[in-house]
């Protein structure tokens, strides 16, 4: 009789022992798959939370303070000078979801009267222009100081589009879809009054009102007309180019970069600082990961705790598995002695024991996989049911895929199974070796 048939007879006839080994392996596999599922979930959840929070850094111009010959303090403000080529280099370092370059300027319009500010005159009847790629990412919209109430935000593909404040729209009876013509302007001061430093108008841009926003804060101090928040026009980047106040592909305001995972912010900034195409004597980087930094420790602790728990569960499971299998094999000493006395080789006896344990282990793991998948699905619905929608709402691009937190890949499940098979085989071999070292006579004398 060959060892495979003997293994089959043992597994099928010793139902109690077989069931015990089956259940032991089954629960060990379910625990391991579920444990690694929770670890996976904690990692993915941390990632999704980080992604939903996001982080940003911006490149700005340095401002210098000096004292002139008259002893007066002078503020030396440099301009940002970042080219599209440099922006492309930065985007290529990876992990950056989008870039929002901003140019600043002023504009007047024959068809638009701006909300009068301090020292208002016909000459200073102008508004400031913030030209950008994504208006929704502008600081006022991001921190809810401003809120779009009609129309759409400006996006990368828009040309000749502007957003104006509700009050400015009402003041000029403008609504979404109306067209106005803007011309260039530059706010200056002369004899204590505000003037336009570009008296002769040569550049014009016909723009469409794409959206109207409401301001949730009011200017606290008197400001000139062009300085009032309600006179701020958000425009697509091409508008200031047409007004000759900026050049295509050159950004002079600031350039904001948004990254998916705040954990990668430091690395991204380090890479950007290494770029030689940016003059770091006149530029600096400002990072913004305030929201992430508030919960970073919590997320790290969650991951650490989960790992410790999993290690404890795995170690305890492995110890019980090894102990029980060892006891099972040690209980077969009599059988080993009989088989050895019958001339059956030690290798064949070990092969029989291994085949029995591994076949039952493999069967238990198949059942465990099916049960674990169902359990994981239920756990995930209970624990993380509403999270994907919430997190997706908060992500900037709304493209992040959330969910499937506890789902393990085939590779990971295969590795778990491999480890369990290895533990079962190793404990069987180790406990069998203790028997096989004995001479048949010693075994038979022990069993009487």
């Amino acid at each position, binding site marked *: *009789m060959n060892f495979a048939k*003997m293994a089959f*007879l*043992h597994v099928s*006839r*010793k139902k109690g022992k077989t069931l015990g080994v089956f259940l032991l392996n089954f629960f060990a596999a379910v625990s391991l798959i579920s444990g690694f599922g929770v670890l996976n979930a904690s990692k993915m959840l941390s990632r999704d939370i980080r992604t939903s929070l996001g982080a940003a850094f911006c490149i700005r111009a340095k401002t210098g303070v000096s004292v002139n010959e008259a002893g007066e303090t002078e503020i030396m403000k440099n301009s940002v000078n970042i080219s599209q080529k440099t922006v492309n280099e930065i985007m290529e370092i990876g992990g950056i979801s989008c870039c929002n370059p901003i140019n600043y300027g002023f504009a007047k319009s024959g068809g638009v009267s701006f909300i009068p500010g301090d020292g208002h005159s016909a000459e200073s009847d102008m508004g400031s222009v913030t030209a950008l790629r994504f208006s929704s990412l502008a600081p006022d919209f991001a921190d809810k100081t401003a809120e779009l109430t009609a129309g759409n935000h400006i996006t990368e593909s828009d040309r000749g589009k502007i957003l104006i404040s509700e009050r400015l729209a009402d003041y000029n009876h403008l609504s979404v879809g109306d067209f106005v013509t803007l011309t260039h302007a530059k706010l200056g001061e002369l004899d204590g009054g505000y003037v336009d430093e570009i008296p002769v108008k040569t550049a014009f841009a016909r723009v469409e009102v794409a959206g109207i926003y409401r301001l949730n804060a009011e200017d606290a101090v008197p400001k000139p007309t062009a300085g009032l928040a309600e006179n701020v026009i958000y425009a697509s980047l091409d508008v200031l180019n047409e007004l000759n106040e900026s050049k295509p592909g050159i950004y002079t305001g600031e350039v904001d970069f948004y990254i998916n995972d705040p954990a990668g912010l430091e690395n991204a900034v380090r890479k950007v600082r290494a770029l030689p195409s940016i003059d770091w004597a006149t530029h600096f980087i400002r990072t913004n990961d305030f929201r992430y930094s508030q919960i970073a420790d919590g997320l790290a602790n969650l991951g650490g705790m989960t790992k410790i728990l999993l290690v404890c569960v795995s170690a305890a499971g492995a110890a019980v598995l090894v102990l029980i299998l060892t006891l099972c094999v040690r209980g077969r000493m*009599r*059988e080993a*002695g*009989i*088989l*050895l*006395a*019958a*001339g*059956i*080789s*030690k290798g064949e006896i070990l092969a029989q024991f291994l085949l029995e344990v591994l076949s039952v282990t493999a069967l238990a793991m198949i059942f465990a996989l099916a049960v674990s998948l169902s359990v994981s699905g239920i756990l995930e619905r209970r624990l993380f049911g509403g999270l994907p929608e919430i997190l997706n709402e908060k992500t900037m691009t709304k493209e992040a895929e959330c969910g499937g937190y506890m789902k393990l890949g085939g590779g990971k499940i295969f590795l778990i199974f491999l480890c369990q098979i290895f533990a079962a085989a190793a404990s069987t071999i180790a406990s069998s070796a203790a028997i096989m070292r004995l*001479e*048949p*006579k*010693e075994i*038979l004398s022990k*069993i*009487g």
Partner: protein
Amino acid sequence: MSILEARNVAYSYDGRRAVLKNVSAAFEAGRIYAITGPSGCGKTTLLSLLGGLDSPTGGQILFEGEDISKKGLAFHRKNNVAFIFQSYNLIDYMTPAENVALTSKRPPLPILERLGLTREESKRNVMRLSGGQQQRTAIARALASDAGVILADEPTGNLDGDTAAEIAAVLKECARRSNKCVIIVTHSEEVAGIADEVFWLRGGEIYGGEG
């Protein structure tokens, strides 16, 4: 020519306590031998050495004139000898037929029937058989193998008088009919009485003569 021979065999535990001293005995095919003596005199140890369950600390065990250690004790156990134990030593999750098939490719049922087990009994779990039936199964397992020597250690020790006599008769019949050498270690005078030759062990030394 003897099929199995112990030549100047010695055995001691830990090199101190001598169990067997210079034991020599020769066993021939078709004959039945009894080894008897007081408890602890080394009967079972001698049987273990003859069967290759252990190695002597001195001397040789020869099978058909060749030292069994040359081909290995496992080879000797598998091909040359078969054991019958006092406690039967059957595999408890198998039927008599499966126990017999452990060491033999021959159909097990005819031999089991010859030893008095019905077909139904031969397909029942061995633990549900009587002591006599279990010992018959153990004998059937030994007979079914191609081994030329059957080594029986107190084969009737756990059986009542009638069953013991039946088993002894079966063993004697096997030796005659199958031309096998049967060596029985026993305390029983009745069993020793059926032997062609009886050896006495005392103080680690063997005294032999015709039965």
